[in-house]
């Protein structure tokens, strides 16, 4: 009896979540339906079967947007996690004023996706921006970072790496939970720092690494703001920052093709689900749970 009452209390507390879910589930199925229609926003959708998905096969811009998103993800996710882990380890060594450093390094994570920071990035990396000024002191003529199609994505990857604060804080919490006695024992046995890192830190931290990896990968596939702001919504220069979601947005709202945009959303869902599944399968071989 008591148990049942407690259940109800639980559900009551969950009510806002269920309420919120309505706004998730309805659009979820609406977009599933729209994915199989020809829908221009202004007139009612018409059933189109698999036409949208067939069109994808020959859509050069879609392929470009997939390429941009994959390159961005495969470079920036490992890079930002590596930086986050490295900084977390340094901070974990007991730096004085840890709280201050932690806050400073975390700050970019709060700001990185914001419009103001991407604007700032545009100025830093502009043709005669601060970065190129700095490089010119060393006699290096920097490229046109944001306007040259060969470099625009690089600046966004750097921006992503710079926002390593969120995984860093999680790494830091994880490091704190590794019992000090393991290191003491290893030290007594004469294990080097590198050896300790490989044999103690990495295995015990692997669930945290895994969690951060899954999170970062999903977030990265959904990148939108950075590309939108840097290119003012165009994905330029020459489609070099045309993220998948940016192209989806262009299709839906600028080109009046919401049916196609919906089918793109579902393709992205499938891609992310696929990557996440691979992640979980691979995790069996490298993630170590000690419970």
């Amino acid at each position, binding site marked *: 009896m008591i148990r049942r009452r407690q259940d109800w209390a639980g559900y009551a507390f969950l009510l806002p979540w269920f309420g919120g879910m309505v706004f998730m589930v309805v659009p979820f199925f609406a977009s599933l339906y729209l994915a199989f229609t020809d829908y221009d*926003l202004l007139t009612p959708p018409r059933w189109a079967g698999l036409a949208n998905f067939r069109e994808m096969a020959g859509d050069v811009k879609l392929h470009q947007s997939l390429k941009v998103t994959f390159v961005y993800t495969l470079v920036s996710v490992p890079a930002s996690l590596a930086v986050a882990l490295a900084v977390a380890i340094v901070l974990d060594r007991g730096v004085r004023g840890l709280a201050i450093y932690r806050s400073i390094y975390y700050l970019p994570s709060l700001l990185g996706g914001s419009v103001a920071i991407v604007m700032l990035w545009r100025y830093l990396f502009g043709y005669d921006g601060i970065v190129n000024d700095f490089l010119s002191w060393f006699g290096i003529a920097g490229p*046109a970072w944001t*306007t040259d199609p060969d470099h625009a994505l690089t600046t966004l990857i750097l921006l992503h790496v710079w926002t390593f604060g969120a995984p860093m804080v999680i790494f830091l919490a994880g490091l704190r939970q590794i019992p000090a006695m393991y290191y003491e024992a290893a030290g007594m046995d004469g294990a080097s720092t590198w050896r300790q890192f490989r044999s103690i830190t990495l295995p015990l931290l692997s*669930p945290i690494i895994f969690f951060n990896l899954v999170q970062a990968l999903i977030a990265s596939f959904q990148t939108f703001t950075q590309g939108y702001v840097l290119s003012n919504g165009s994905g330029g220069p*020459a489609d070099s920052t045309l993220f998948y979601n940016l192209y989806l947005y262009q299709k839906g709202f600028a080109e009046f093709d919401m049916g196609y945009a919906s089918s793109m959303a579902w393709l992205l869902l499938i891609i*992310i689900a696929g990557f996440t599944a691979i992640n979980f399968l691979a995790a069996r071989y490298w993630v170590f749970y000690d419970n």
Partner: protein
Amino acid sequence: MNSRLDRRRLLTLAGMAGLAATLPACGRGFGGNGDSDGKVELNMVWWGDAHRAELTQKSLDLFQSANPGVRVRTEYQDSSPYKDKLAARFAAGDPPDLMAMRFDSLREYADRGTLLDLARHPELDQNGLTEPARALGRVGSASYGVPSGLNTIGFVIDKTLTDQYGVDIPDGDTWSWADLATFAQKVTRASGGKVYGTNFEPWTVANLLVFARQRGEDFFTADGRLGATEATLTAWYQLVEDLREAGGIPPAGFIDQNNGASPAQSYLAKKSIASQIIPTNNLLGFNQACGGNLVLLRIPGETQGTRRGQSVDTPALWSVAAASRHPAEAIKLLNFLINDTEAAKVAGVTRGVPANSRVAETIAPGLEPDNKRSSDFLAALQKEKLPASYPYPVGASKLTSILKTISTEVEFGRTSPADAGRQFVTEARKAIAP
């Protein structure tokens, strides 16, 4: 307390985060306008800045005191978010009653039956408008928009810079594209590369419309097809690349395509270029941002081409939604905006020269000097025989993005002007295919 993440909790967390994050957001908006106090409420939307908002509000105040039964609720934004929001409002079944419509989007909406055919509402008085002005909103025998004002494009040159470097400004009515190249190269050389002679956007459709007409082609034909040829696009990109080679325009990568159109942020205001193309209704803003010494010229090549290239255009049309619940009041307001002299006096020429010629003449003497200059520029053009401007066909709003991409490829030497011409025609035909 041991709060280490165990396997199950981790799975749940990751799964939930993944699900929540990947749900495609594609909902329907909320809307509706209640007429609670017996007044008819009209919703009117447009794009622009705070200054334009102030002027617009002044004219609306006049309207509301003359029509106490109507309340006008306005919303405005920058042009780029405006475009997306307008589409979303139509999709949500909550279109505004009266709206500013982009010239290149008119048929996207009109051809899908979402706009009111104004030709069927004789109470809307368009008699004060010239035939070319009325043609801007016409699709077949129907009329889906009235120009909120008239403008064209012009070339502005910063005379402070040319005086400083001792370069003469060519005659603005008769200069050729070759004259522009010579002029630009002189400025760049004389300034030692500190200032580039010119820059104009090779991806802006309005510029290409003029260039194509000068070569005897219609960029868009009267029946809504692509009329510009590969040869014209190739010649355009060749012109730009020759200018770049000669140093008349900045090197590849210098200009950020997404710098924005605001006068204060322009390269002209930063004094890194000495001339550029602007919409004439922005002359006041540009002149203020650039130090007050801009000279306004016609586009080069007007007297050397097969025919004239410039035309009388509009920064925006006014359209009424077919689904408006108060079409009579919306048309009344529209009538007021285009035909009322007092409204035009307070609103000025922020949306271009009033489309009603009588109203334009009446307010002309009271305009600020720069606005007077751009109005006279347009008035002079209107007296000449110019080719007509037609609404862009459906799909034409994709062309800017296609042109931006191709322009970048040419700029960085990844493709030749000849290939660029071919690529543009192929992609543009596909974009505006029925």
